[in-house]
């Protein structure tokens, strides 16, 4: 493989190549030592026995009874949260771009409030609130609480995504809309919003990864029977195979989220190269920034 020069080092010459081989050998030894230690301690606790791992490959009931229903609940909660949070987020995102100072301030306060609070706190609140103030049945309550907590947090993050998506559009779009006599509402619904939806698709898919990961909190704290919650009954029924169960559950999460991440990157690349769009895009990288309270990628008021 031909090495590309980076900021930090040159293309290696003969001496550097010899040194790199030495580093490689040392690194392999270090990693091998760690792997040996892990395998050794797993074997010492009988976690590598075939009967603990076999069910996942030979017994389809493990999948149909525990893993797939858990995965289904994870996906349902994540999808519901996204579908409900998106319109709410759009509403607040647009409100933050309002011409009226008090609308901006009110929407800004709500968004900042929910971005600064951990999702778990919101879920715990939602769970208790449903049991105290509503007659949602106890079986449904964990799902309701998880989705509500996720919606409260993610609507505020998506508000920033929507706002960034609208601000990313070239200002010529607004100017053109004004020139043909559109009013503010028309400009927003007919010109800016449809284009910004395309621009922020990659960011939305990335946020979906954050949502999927946060559903696991419901399994651990609220008794929501999602993927992580399937570990305990699984290891109880298949001979205390805790390590094996955790490994399989982690692999399922990684595959699901990796597919979403790859899809987001593919979308982003497609949109950036696309000829039919304005080329404006809220990228995957921006999501992390938008999850942070107290800061915005672009200051409000840039746009009339």
């Amino acid at each position: 493989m031909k090495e590309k020069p980076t900021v930090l080092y040159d293309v290696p010459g003969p001496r550097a190549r010899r040194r790199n081989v030495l580093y490689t050998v040392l690194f392999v030894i270090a990693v091998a030592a760690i792997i040996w230690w892990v395998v050794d301690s797993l074997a010492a606790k009988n976690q590598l026995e075939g009967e603990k791992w076999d069910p996942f490959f030979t017994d389809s009931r493990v999948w149909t009874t525990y893993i797939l229903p858990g995965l289904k609940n994870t996906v349902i909660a994540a999808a519901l949260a996204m579908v409900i949070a998106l319109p709410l987020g759009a509403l607040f995102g647009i409100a933050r771009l309002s011409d009226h100072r008090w609308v901006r301030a009110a929407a800004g306060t709500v968004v900042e409030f929910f971005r600064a609070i951990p999702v778990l706190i919101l879920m715990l609140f939602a769970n208790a609130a449903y049991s105290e103030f509503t007659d949602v049945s106890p079986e449904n309550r964990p799902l309701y609480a998880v989705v509500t907590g996720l919606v409260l947090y993610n609507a505020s993050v998506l508000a920033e995504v929507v706002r960034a998506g609208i601000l990313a559009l070239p200002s010529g779009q607004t100017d053109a809309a004004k020139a043909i006599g559109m009013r503010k509402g028309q400009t927003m619904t007919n010109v800016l919003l449809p284009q910004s939806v395309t621009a922020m698709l990659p960011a939305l898919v990335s946020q979906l990864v954050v949502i999927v990961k946060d559903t696991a909190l419901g399994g651990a704290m609220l008794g929501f029977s999602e993927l992580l919650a399937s570990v305990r009954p699984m290891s109880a029924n298949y001979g205390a195979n805790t390590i094996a169960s955790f490994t399989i559950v982690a692999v399922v999460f990684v595959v699901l989220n990796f597919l979403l991440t790859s899809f987001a990157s593919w979308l982003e690349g497609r949109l950036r190269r696309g000829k039919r769009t304005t080329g404006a895009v809220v990228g995957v990288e921006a999501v992390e920034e938008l999850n942070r309270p107290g800061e915005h990628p672009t200051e409000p008021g840039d746009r009339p």
Partner: protein
Amino acid sequence: MFDFLQDYDILGAFWTTIQLTFWSAIGSLVWGTLLAAMRVSPVPLMRGFGTVYVNIVRNIPLTVIIVFTSLGLFQTLGVSLGAKDFTGINFRLAVLGLIAYTAAFVCEALRSGINTVPLGQVEAARAIGLNFTQTLRLVVLPQAFRSVVGPLTNVLIALTKNTTVAATIGVAEAALLMREMIENEAQLILISVIFAFGFICLTLPTGLFLNWVAKKVAVKR
């Protein structure tokens, strides 16, 4: 109405949250820097290891990692990290899980910082006769550190909020106390407002201050 608050150690719970944040921040900074060094190193195998680690850990929910440290590492494999009592063991396990998870994000933040330094800067440094160490010390790292403050602020604030996940393995931090108080007292709104306010006090000023610093030190390009 506020009498029941004296029965609970709210400040103590938030102090545990701060301690979790502090130790995890230190640990993930060290481990994340090592990972970042691997990801930009000239050795392909180290780069590969760094990439694989980051991509796997970023896609696993933190909750899975934290619960695994308790159910898997401690209860199954007997790893207790040198602590004697349950409180100490759970605290250390939670810090270990938070470090393993957060380091992946620290690594990405540092790497993006190094990548913001344009190749022309290094070429110019070489053209005036600086050697590798001088280039790194005088040109690349000063610029990389300055552009990394903002991304690292994100990670620190996300970490502060993520410490609540330690409640899943019984670390007596804010979220666990909140659940206990909600179950025992009929003051849901008041309790929620107190804990929400506590977290806003932790995250918002830190965010505003560090973002101000980030803007101050940012390299104008």
